[in-house]
């Protein structure tokens, strides 16, 4: 105690003590307090962790699915209507075989002639078979199509040529193959001009279509061979016993999406007329609009997003209430500390900021952990649940914003309570 002189000096003028605790200092105090009770701080943040993880997964899966759908729409061609035979049941009895063969070339022809909005029309039949090239063989699907098919479905050529009119008319044994088939049969070499056998029939490969990748339903769209419709009918359909002129599908394309509803209703009327279906009788065909199909998927995605949004909102509210609860306990526990801080000159504002900073840091910390878990979860969902995800900075900033807002909102009342304490009462505890 011999160096007490060090404490002695002229009193400091009030003006020299006019500085204030900086926001940085107050954050430092908050971190100090939270570190002293890190277990409690972490548990308090749990609700926010779950909420923010849910927000991240929700938004990344939602955006990813939307992006995938948009891409699929673009790839499949959106101004498209499919007409298929109706395989449904009628009056409890599986309809006869002829109902599967209800569509014919005559229908396709009538659509071309009588529906002005049907810009592109292609009949199609298909089947599965082995294809063989030299030593390689591969089991794939063949599609017998007409020229419009490539336009409506947005298939582009990567190599070679498309079918000529003569090919269609003369039922030439020419084939255009998809990327997967080319890889399986030819590896990386150019297949154009090569002979392959489709089933037992030899064909010449005249082209390869550009890859489309996975379809929206998980299948490989590139695992396919195209041949002219007539060729398919005469050379490949042998094993499928179908009446002459039968089509398995008619693909109709319109110039704009706006024409779709009108063309769709015209199709229904025309086919009912051609198939002589009585008013009230059941259609022996089905008309499917791709936009509706994608719409249904969008709806599913939207429902899933809403569910996750509900989980996220509830977690954030529950997490926020947890923070509020712990902060109220903390204010009561540290009432002497608050009194002392006030006695040495902390203003109510300083105290309020300190407790707000603590609440905000708890939820921000929870947010950061939640983001890590959310990003990890989204990646797992994409890897093992084959859900498309899209992670971007906006999502992460949004989640951080939610976390901070939760802390500030639910920390406000406890902080206000601390700031309003009477220093005398607080010191007396």
């Amino acid at each position: 105690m011999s160096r007490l002189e060090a404490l002695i000096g002229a009193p400091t003028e009030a003006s020299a003590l006019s500085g204030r605790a900086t926001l940085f200092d107050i954050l430092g105090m908050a971190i100090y307090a939270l570190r002293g009770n890190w277990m409690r701080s972490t548990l308090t943040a749990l609700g926010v962790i779950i909420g923010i993880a849910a927000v991240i997964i929700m938004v990344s899966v939602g955006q990813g699915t939307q992006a995938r759908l948009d891409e699929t729409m673009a790839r499949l061609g959106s101004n498209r209507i499919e007409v298929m035979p109706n395989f449904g049941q009628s009056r409890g009895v599986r309809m006869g075989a002829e109902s599967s063969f209800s569509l014919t070339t005559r229908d396709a022809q009538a659509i071309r002639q009588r529906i002005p909005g049907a810009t592109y029309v292609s009949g199609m039949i298909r089947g599965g078979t082995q294809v063989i090239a030299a030593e390689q063989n591969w089991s794939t699907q063949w599609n017998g199509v007409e020229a419009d098919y490539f336009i409506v479905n947005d298939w582009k050529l990567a190599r070679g040529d498309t079918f000529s009119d003569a090919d269609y008319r003369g039922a030439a044994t020419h084939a255009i193959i998809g990327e997967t088939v080319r890889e399986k049969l030819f590896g990386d070499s150019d297949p154009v001009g090569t002979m392959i056998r489709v089933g037992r029939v030899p064909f010449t490969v005249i082209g390869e279509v550009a890859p489309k990748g996975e379809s929206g339903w998980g299948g490989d769209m590139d695992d396919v061979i195209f041949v002219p419709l007539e060729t398919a009918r005469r050379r490949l359909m042998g094993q499928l016993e179908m009446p002459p002129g039968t089509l398995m599908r008619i693909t109709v394309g319109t110039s704009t999406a706006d024409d779709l509803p009108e063309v769709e209703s015209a199709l229904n009327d025309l086919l009912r007329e051609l198939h002589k279906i009585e008013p009230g009788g059941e259609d022996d065909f089905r008309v499917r609009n791709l936009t509706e199909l994608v719409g249904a998927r969008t709806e599913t995605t939207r429902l899933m997003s809403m569910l996750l949004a509900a989980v996220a909102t509830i977690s954030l509210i529950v997490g926020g209430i947890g923070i509020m609860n712990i902060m109220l306990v903390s204010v009561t526990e540290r009432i002497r500390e608050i009194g002392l801080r006030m006695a040495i000159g902390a203003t109510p504002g300083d105290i309020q900021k300190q407790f707000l900073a603590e609440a905000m840091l708890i939820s921000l910390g929870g947010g950061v952990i939640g983001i890590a878990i959310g990003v990890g979860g989204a990646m797992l969902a994409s890897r093992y649940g084959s859900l498309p995800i899209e992670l971007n900075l906006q999502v992460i900033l949004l989640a951080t914003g939610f976390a901070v807002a939760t802390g500030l909102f639910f920390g406000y009342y406890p902080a206000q309570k601390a700031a309003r304490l009477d220093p005398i009462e607080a010191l007396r505890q």
Partner: protein
Amino acid sequence: MSPVIELNTISKVYAAGTAAEVVALDQVSARILRGEFVAIVGPSGSGKSTLMNIIGCLDTPSSGSYRCSGVDVADLDASARAELRRTQIGFVFQGFHLLPRMTALENVALPLTYVGVPKAQRRERAARALQAVGLADRAEHRPNELSGGQQQRVAIARALINRPAILLADEPTGALDSHTGEEILALFEQLRIAGHTVILITHDPAVADHADRTLQIHDGHLVEVESKEGA
């Protein structure tokens, strides 16, 4: 010299108007000049702690007026009173009021935080203050690892870290051995010489003898004012 503390017929009544009404201070008037060393003496329950809280701008009187450094405290809101405390007053509380989760050094440095002293300087100045009270080797200890006397010295170092114009000390030698107590009282006398106003609250007349002047409080009345000769 101008009065730094000016109490005019101050009363403090708790639970006014009820059966439990307690008059802690009754019509107390006093003037303490800048640079005076004054002891307020009284038995426990006499109202001396209430008086200290009012002088320290922690509490407000029920009636009467109090001017601290010329400012009427009744006109100040909680923030302005906090500013007055921050810039003018250092407290040594009877119960020390050290923050249990902080080290001795951090406790001493705390008032510096609220006047915006940068962290490195805070630690350096707090270390010097601890050294001055003989606790350099206890800087990183928490209050529960310190003896009562050591805690009291930490509290004194904290009260003096900003060299406040007014030092309010409630039984500052209560936990100290008589030798250390004498040293602290000698320190207060030196502070007074350096220009500080020192107000010492004690029940011990021997401690009060170190002051220039003693105000005696009894049952809420300031009953006697005695001055040292020549002061």
